[in-house]
């Protein structure tokens, strides 16, 4: 072989080459196939088939309804007739065509001539102008030529007009013949427009309706490589200029491709289809073209998260909401977790969290119930005290003041309480620090007990004197109980143990605004309770507990009642002795932080027991961050201990320590675990006592955890949606501030505001049954009459001045029959002004503009009004209280004191109210005297000539003139208080919430 200058067998090389080439060919072909095979293409193909199906069904339906219409059938018949007529009469004969052509040709010739001359003229004009401007010799010549030519052009123009007119006439002649037919066609297409549209659509998408060539084309257009030209399957994308992705160096416009697979998302026809074709729920609110969040402007991932550019199931970083769904996806889509994307999709149950991105100012976001619940829980549990959250920066510490602690509770009670708060009260808001998963071993338990002793020692040592008044009278527990049940304590407190089955919702949380009052006898004394009830702010200046304006007797009764309930089990819990050895260990651990080992030991030897307790207590309070929630002497201005949560969910997943726990590595799973067992991430770690996790256990229920996690997932960096945030207009700010105050003072515990709240009504109902002897049905129907009023429309209704004074000090009794009391809240001037502005903003009323109409009346008018007011006509006094005069009707239907109308109500509003009360307050008991449907005939004919407008005006003026024996309200006497001239009782703005 060798000698012929060849080494390899050429045939073998050929074979090798052939095989290699074939292998390469196969490789390239599979490359094409791999590239061609995309999930979205399959979905689009499926979707087109569905579209065809749906269009067909619709078309059939439409055709059937059309054919059932006489009008249409008639039209079709007419059309046929007209067509026949047209064919017979107006068909374009050759003769007509020829004559038209002749005229046309003529017109074209003239036009051409005209255009040519015109062009020449324009050129000449320029030459002439130029020549004149530069004073050239032949300017004059050009001028003459120009004159001549322009005359010629004018002439031609006339000719042109004539010939055009002739043409038009000719055309008109031909056209007019078919006018009727055209008219008929037009009206047909008007009636059958929908069907024609469907037919047209079907023609373009349904292969069965296509011509053979188009069917072929339909196949070919989607073939590999050829699909570069004009494919059916296309990636659909929306580029959002002002909703961005953060790529760390800058924010770049989002490119949304979700709709390449979620093809029916905006089409209501696909409501019952499976994913990915299903219609988005609530199209009026989301995604729909006319919704506030249209897809073209908001896209999808701004709310749902995920990788907007992704065009495959995994590439879009879908996240399952349950293990079951995960398993299903794994099978169906080959789902796997994509770790390398920081913003995975938000699991569906938590989607509401993203509303917070743009609506964070609103206290309660409409339609986002779970998020609202989560936010409420955060407020109630006081998460914001240890963890800074922007939204709650100005909120008060959630726990009670501890600076006068010694007068309220005993050391033993304090020990038991700190050791296990939930054993005293099952739904205590105070979370548990001890007996948790990372400090329940025997050694830690012993240490814990000494830690508690040290902290209690510090707290009781650092108290201020607090003068307690003696009980002036002896209380009656039964009266006390009735009072508690009737005057409105139940708006914020509960007494009976709440069953675990009760679902946590916003209403229930309102009832838990203040602590549950069970077992108070074990906690504190009658005397302290009396003092507290008489004036809560004396003990705790920033408390949200209002003053119920109780008499001494009432306060004593309630104190008697509340202190009667004791928790024997709790009282029986042993309190261990102080153990100096363990205490020494605690002290030395803290000493070592600042001193050398020996120094610490020397120091310890010098300390007395009290000093040790004090030292350890102080350090421990700062370690556990007790001061974050409570006022404690020595910790004024200390920084909260928790991690800031304002942008918690934007933190990189790598920054969450999952420890040795085997849970899903996602933020929501981490939050859930943290709330379920806050110390669990210490599991399996060896840590010194002061290195251990400190977050206490709130013992949340599962649904509460989900709600809080929903809220937490919304705490993100919002630079990506800056442009889409709810605008910071003055009105919005006022509303938000008002809502914030309403949440802080739990106004909605009693009142319905913006359609929510009034949760006290159910306890009023119970009271009616228990004490007023009403049956179930009666109680249910009249309970609203005995509940605090609905505050709908208050901004337009009430006089701002009056409202200001009333909120500050509700002295005037508007509804004397009510047992529930409007308490005196600890509002400062800025609160009051904010609330009034809020009421007006909600009703769209301009503040502080006030128009005082003339309410003077002539004698006749007065007489007429009196008549209307009287029993003979409207009988106002049947329901309305007027000063000291109580109405004649049953208490269930009593209505507000009309003697206050003058100062309380806005005159403009009163007119509207008299005209049509239920338009202003749907479901009101106030009868409609002037039927809006037949307004002109509604008023009594014998008064003021039956002029309804006049009747209403005089009645209004009459009401505004009413007064009673009650003294003139002081507000009238004084000018409207500004924030500088605050009433005496109102605390200065900065000292209060």
């Amino acid at each position, binding site marked *: 072989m060798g000698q012929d200058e060849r080494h390899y067998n050429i045939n073998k090389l050929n074979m090798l*080459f*052939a095989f290699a*080439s074939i292998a390469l060919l196969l490789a390239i072909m599979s*490359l094409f196939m791999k590239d061609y095979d995309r999930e979205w293409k399959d979905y689009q193909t499926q979707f087109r088939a569905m579209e065809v199906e749906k269009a067909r069904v619709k078309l059939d339906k439409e055709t059937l309804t059309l054919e059932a219409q006489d009008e249409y059938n008639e039209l079709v018949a007419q059309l046929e007739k007209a067509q026949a007529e047209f064919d017979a009469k107006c068909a374009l004969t050759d003769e007509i065509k020829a004559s038209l052509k002749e005229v046309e040709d003529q017109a074209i010739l003239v036009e051409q001539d005209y255009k040519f001359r015109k062009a020449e003229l324009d050129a000449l004009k320029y030459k002439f102008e130029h020549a004149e401007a530069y004073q050239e010799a032949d300017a004059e010549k050009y001028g003459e030529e120009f004159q001549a030519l322009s005359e010629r052009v004018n002439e031609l123009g006339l000719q042109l007009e004539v010939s055009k007119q002739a043409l038009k006439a000719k055309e008109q002649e031909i056209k007019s013949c078919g006018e009727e037919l055209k008219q008929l066609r037009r009206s047909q297409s008007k009636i059958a*427009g929908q069907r024609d*549209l469907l037919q047209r659509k079907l023609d373009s998408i349904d292969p069965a309706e296509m011509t053979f060539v188009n069917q072929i084309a339909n196949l070919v257009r989607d073939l*590999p490589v050829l699909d570069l030209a004009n494919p059916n399957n296309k*990636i659909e*994308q929306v*580029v959002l200029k002002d909703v961005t992705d953060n790529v760390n160096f800058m924010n770049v416009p989002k490119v949304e491709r979700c709709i390449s697979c979620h093809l029916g998302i905006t089409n209501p026809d696909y409501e019952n289809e499976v994913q990915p074709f299903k219609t988005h729920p609530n199209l009026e609110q989301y995604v729909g073209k006319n919704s506030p969040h249209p897809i073209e402007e908001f896209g999808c991932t701004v709310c749902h998260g995920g990788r907007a550019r992704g065009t495959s199931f995994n590439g879009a970083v879908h996240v399952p909401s349950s293990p079951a769904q995960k398993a299903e996806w794994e099978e169906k889509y080959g789902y796997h977790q994509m770790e390398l994307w920081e913003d995975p999709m938000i699991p569906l149950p938590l989607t509401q969290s993203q509303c917070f991105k743009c609506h964070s100012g609103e206290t309660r976001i409409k339609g986002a119930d779970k998020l609202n619940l989560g936010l409420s829980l955060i407020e109630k549990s006081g998460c914001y005290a240890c963890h800074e959250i922007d939204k709650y920066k100005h909120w008060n510490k959630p726990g009670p003041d501890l600076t006068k602690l010694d007068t309220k509770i005993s050391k033993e009670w304090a020990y038991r309480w700190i050791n296990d708060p939930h054993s005293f009260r099952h739904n205590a808001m105070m979370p548990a620090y001890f007996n948790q998963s990372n400090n329940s071993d025997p050694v830690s338990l012993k240490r814990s007990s000494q830690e508690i002793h040290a902290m209690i020692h510090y707290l009781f040592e650092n108290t201020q004197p607090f003068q307690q008044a003696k009980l002036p009278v002896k209380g009656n527990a039964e009266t006390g109980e009735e009072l508690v049940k009737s005057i409105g304590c139940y708006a914020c407190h509960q007494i009976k143990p709440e069953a675990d089955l009760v679902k946590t919702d916003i209403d229930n949380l309102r009832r838990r605004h203040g602590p549950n009052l069970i077992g108070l006898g074990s906690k504190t004394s009658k005397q302290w309770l009396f003092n507290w009830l008489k004036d809560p702010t004396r003990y705790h200046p920033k408390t949200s507990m209002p003053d119920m304006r109780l008499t001494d007797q009432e306060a004593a009764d309630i104190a008697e009642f509340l202190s009667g309930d004791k928790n024997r089990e709790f009282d029986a819990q042993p309190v261990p002795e102080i153990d100096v050895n363990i205490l020494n260990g605690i002290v030395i651990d803290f000493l070592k932080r600042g001193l050398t080992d020996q120094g610490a030991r020397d120091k310890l030897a010098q300390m007395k027991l009290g000093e040790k307790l004090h030292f350890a207590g102080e350090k421990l309070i700062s370690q556990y961050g007790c001061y974050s929630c409570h006022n404690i002497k020595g910790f004024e201005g200390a920084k909260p201990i928790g991690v800031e949560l304002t942008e918690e969910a934007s933190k990189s997943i790598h920054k969450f320590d999952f420890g040795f726990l085997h849970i899903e590595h996602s933020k929501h799973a981490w939050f859930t675990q943290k709330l379920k067992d806050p110390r669990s991430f210490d599991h399996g770690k060896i840590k010194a006592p002061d290195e251990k996790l400190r977050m206490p256990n709130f013992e949340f229920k599962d649904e509460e955890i989900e709600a809080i996690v929903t809220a937490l997932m919304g705490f993100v960096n919002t630079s990506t949606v800056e442009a889409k945030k709810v605008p910071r207009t003055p009105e919005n700010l006022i509303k938000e501030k008002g809502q914030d105050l309403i949440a802080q003072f739990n106004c909605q515990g009693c009142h319905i505001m913006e359609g929510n709240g009034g949760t006290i009504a159910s306890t009023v109902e119970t009271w009616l049954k228990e004490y007023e002897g009403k049956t179930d049905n009666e109680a249910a129907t009249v309970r609203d009459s005995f509940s605090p009023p609905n505050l709908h429309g208050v901004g337009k209704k009430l006089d701002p001045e009056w409202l200001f004074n009333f909120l500050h000090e509700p002295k005037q009794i508007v509804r004397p029959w009510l047992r529930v009391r409007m308490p005196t809240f600890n509002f400062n001037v800025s609160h009051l002004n904010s609330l009034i502005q809020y009421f007006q903003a909600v009703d769209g009323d301009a503040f502080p503009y006030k128009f005082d109409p003339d309410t003077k009346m002539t004698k006749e008018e007065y007489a007429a009004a009196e008549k209307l007011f009287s029993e003979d006509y409207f009988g106002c006094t049947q329901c309305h209280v007027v000063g000291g005069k109580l109405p004649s009707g049953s208490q269930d239907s009593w209505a507000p004191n009309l003697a206050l109308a003058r100062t309380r109500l806005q005159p403009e509003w009163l007119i509207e109210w008299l005209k049509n009360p239920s338009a202003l307050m749907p479901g009101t008991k106030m009868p409609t005297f002037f039927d809006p449907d037949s307004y002109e005939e509604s008023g009594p004919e014998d008064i003021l000539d039956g002029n309804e407008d006049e009747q209403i005006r005089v009645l209004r003026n009459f009401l505004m003139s009413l007064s009673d024996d009650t003294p003139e309200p002081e507000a009238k006497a004084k000018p409207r208080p500004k924030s500088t001239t605050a009433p005496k009782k109102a605390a200065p703005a900065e000292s209060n919430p």
Partner: protein
Amino acid sequence: MSKNNPSKPPKKSSGKSKSDKKIPPRPSVPPAGSSANPTSSDDKQVGVTPSQLQGKTGIVSKPITRKAATKAQTSAPEVDRRTFVKWLAIGWTAFAAVLGGYGSLVLRYLFPNVLFEPKQSFRAGFPDDYVVGEVSERYKDQQATWIVRDSEKIYALSTVCTHLGCTPNWLENEEKFKCPCHGSGFYKTGIHFEGPAPRPLERFKISLADDGEIVVDKTQKFQQEKGEWDDPESYILA
């Protein structure tokens, strides 16, 4: 060949090309029957293999020719030749296909699946949104389009003056478009009647979508002077 290859001695190359021309038919001559009987080696020596011919051209030394001949004796050359051609053909066909594949790969790569340019078509509401005889300026700023409805049809006019590309103004009282740059004037239909504009305004493709909404597609233009305004795509009947 000598013409093509002037640097080579003409004599040699012509001689070679002659022999070249002779060779190809010969090996292909043996009928199918002989190939079925590859061992009859005597005959085969007559058939000249390319390597023998190489020898004859005199470039290669003798012994190699002899060697090649012996080789030809032992392994049936015409079978070799057939397999040679067969595999070579397969190989090159496949390779040609590969090249085609590479070509289409690059071709396809040049056309992305999505465009980031602003959309050239837009939705312009429903026909009933437009008043007969009015020029709607709703889409003038965003889409550079006037939408006009006359007694029988709706059409979309480009807002680009055909003179030098300024944007004319619609003067409602005078019922005309007037270009502020050089004073061209256009009727409501888009026909030019004054000033330097050489031709009427252009119209865009306009159609109705599935839901009855108007869709204007700016990629397709219709010019009056080309008689395109009669095209049914240039207007919709109202």
